[in-house]
């Protein structure tokens, strides 16, 4: 169980980083304006910054284990409750981006492997290395410039048009608007999702296509593929059932490992599209010097990444019988 030391390390790192802030979070928040010393002392006491460091860390650790991540110094809401209202927006976007990348990237990679050395293959590999090099903050703005401002096809920012009110039942706009049976709201939700999905999905798409192609090329050279062909199975059956199923094993790992990068990319994507998610929230917390939010939000994202990595490990052993004991 390497999770426990990693977890303690992660909390220690997030604790240390916040305490590297010059002065303390309260002083930094107050800034140049200054407030009465008594008020400052009271605030420090309220947030526990007057305790010795080791005591603060132990308290912090105990709080975190109990699911208490502190209170925003700006809104006085708990970090956890703010996170819960915003996180569905990020998951929705991340799911759409991964789905987009998988549904387009994997078939493209398969076709490129089957047509190795053709213009299609070279073109796709060129496009994928370009996609993987993309500064997505610029890519998103260019998309807005062309498709939103130029053609007027998609909205510039937000999750749904102000004209519609959708009962926030699950927090996932796609589910909520489908539930509410309001066609206009659904259309608005989908059109708001298109550009952010493409932007966030671009780098994963490029990676999945490249990964699928090389995994397919490796598998296609195996003896069992020749055997399957020699048995007279159709090309489609050999490609999908024999080759792709085996080629997908490394690809699934890459998909799982891309979640961390995806959450990093979500910070940029959400900032560009004013998408009310966790990434946007973290950037705002920096501008407002809301350190408990910055600390708690970062920690929650790290915990999610630990969880996803664990899930990928387990899924990997399900998919790959060779490593099952």
């Amino acid at each position, binding site marked *: 169980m390497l999770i426990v030391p990693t977890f303690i390390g992660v909390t220690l*790192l997030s604790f240390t980083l916040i305490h590297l802030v010059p002065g303390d979070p309260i002083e930094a928040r107050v800034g140049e304006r200054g407030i009465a010393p008594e008020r400052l002392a009271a605030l420090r006491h309220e947030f526990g910054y007057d305790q010795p460091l080791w005591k603060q860390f132990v308290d912090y650790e105990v709080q975190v284990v109990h699911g208490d991540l502190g209170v925003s110094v700006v809104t006085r809401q708990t970090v956890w409750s703010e996170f819960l209202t915003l996180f569905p927006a990020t998951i929705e976007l991340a799911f759409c981006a991964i789905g987009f990348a998988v549904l387009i990237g994997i078939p493209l990679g398969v076709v490129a492997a089957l047509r190795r050395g053709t213009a299609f293959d070279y073109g796709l590999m060129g496009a994928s290395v370009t996609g993987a*090099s993309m*500064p997505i903050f610029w890519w998103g703005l260019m998309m807005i410039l062309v498709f939103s*401002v130029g053609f007027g096809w998609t909205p510039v920012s937000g999750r749904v048009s102000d004209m519609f009110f959708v009962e926030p039942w699950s927090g996932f706009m796609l589910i909520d608007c489908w539930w509410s049976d309001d066609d206009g709201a659904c259309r608005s939700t989908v059109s708001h999702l298109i550009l952010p999905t493409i932007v966030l999905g671009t780098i994963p798409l490029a990676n999945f296509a490249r990964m699928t192609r090389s995994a397919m090329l490796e598998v296609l050279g195996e003896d069992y593929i020749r055997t399957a062909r020699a048995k007279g199975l159709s090309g489609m059956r050999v490609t999908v059932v024999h080759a792709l199923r085996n080629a997908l094993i490394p690809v699934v790992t890459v998909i799982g490992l891309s979640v961390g990068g995806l959450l990093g990319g979500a910070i940029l994507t959400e900032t560009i599209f004013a998408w009310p998610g966790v990434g946007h929230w973290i950037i705002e917390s920096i501008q407002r010097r809301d350190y408990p939010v910055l600390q708690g939000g970062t920690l929650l994202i790290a915990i999610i990444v630990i969880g996803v990595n664990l899930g990928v490990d387990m899924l990997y052993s399900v998919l790959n019988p060779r490593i099952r004991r």
Partner: protein
Amino acid sequence: MSATVPMPSRLTLFWRSFSENRGAVFGLGLMVVLIIVAALADVLALHTPIEQFRENFLTPPAWDVEGNWHFPLGTDDVGRDMLSRLIYGARLSLMIGFSVVAVALLTGTTLGLTAAFAGGMVDVFIMRLVDVILVFPSLLLAIVVVAILGPGMFNAMLAVAVVTLPGYIRLSRASALVELNRDYVTATRAAGASTVRLMFDTVLPNCMAPLIVHATLGFSTAILDAAALGFLGLGAQPPTPEWGTMLAGALQYYQRAWWVLAFPGFAILMTVLAFNLFGDGLRDALDPKLKR
């Protein structure tokens, strides 16, 4: 006597296998252009990057009817020449990439070799630290570090160097562990070489190939992440002609003036692409195991 065919030198062999990869050669070409532009910025740029031609603000590029050749790629919102800013930006980007990679490579390799040589608790501690850093999405961790140290180009570079450390530590540790069991290391140790000498003089040169490849690809990560921090307002501050910072400054005007947005981002894309293509080619040429 029959003429002996000379063994081609290692460099020739390397170039033969490298130049087979057209993408890699294209990347190398782009890199050379960038380096020349960065080196000759003072000669190539028509204006200084911060000179403001207030009467010519938001001039379109020269080929537009309203443009003029005084400002080939147009001007930004306070009338600074876009082309000159991009040219000086190339210098900054290469400087950022180089510094970040140098710091990360030096620190990471030292930590990795220390972990491999010391073993025991030191090894466990260093590798746990690597695991912890890897749990955070790298951009997020860089953002947090800069948010705490304060925005600025130097802190942004430091943050990016910190978040890219794990790769160098892991690579150098793994290859050092392989080398440590070789006879030549045992022989050198028996001859009385000190640990530091063993680490840097005996073992390190034989671990360089993967580190060089990783460092080349690290250039692109460094440039991309530093530009992202600049875009978020956490990196280089205006009026520094850093490409990401220029994009942040363009946000209010881009619907009116596409060129203030299009060119800096395209410059970032091309630079990152150049290093990625070159790094991929380098890996294929240096690592015979991956060869087709």
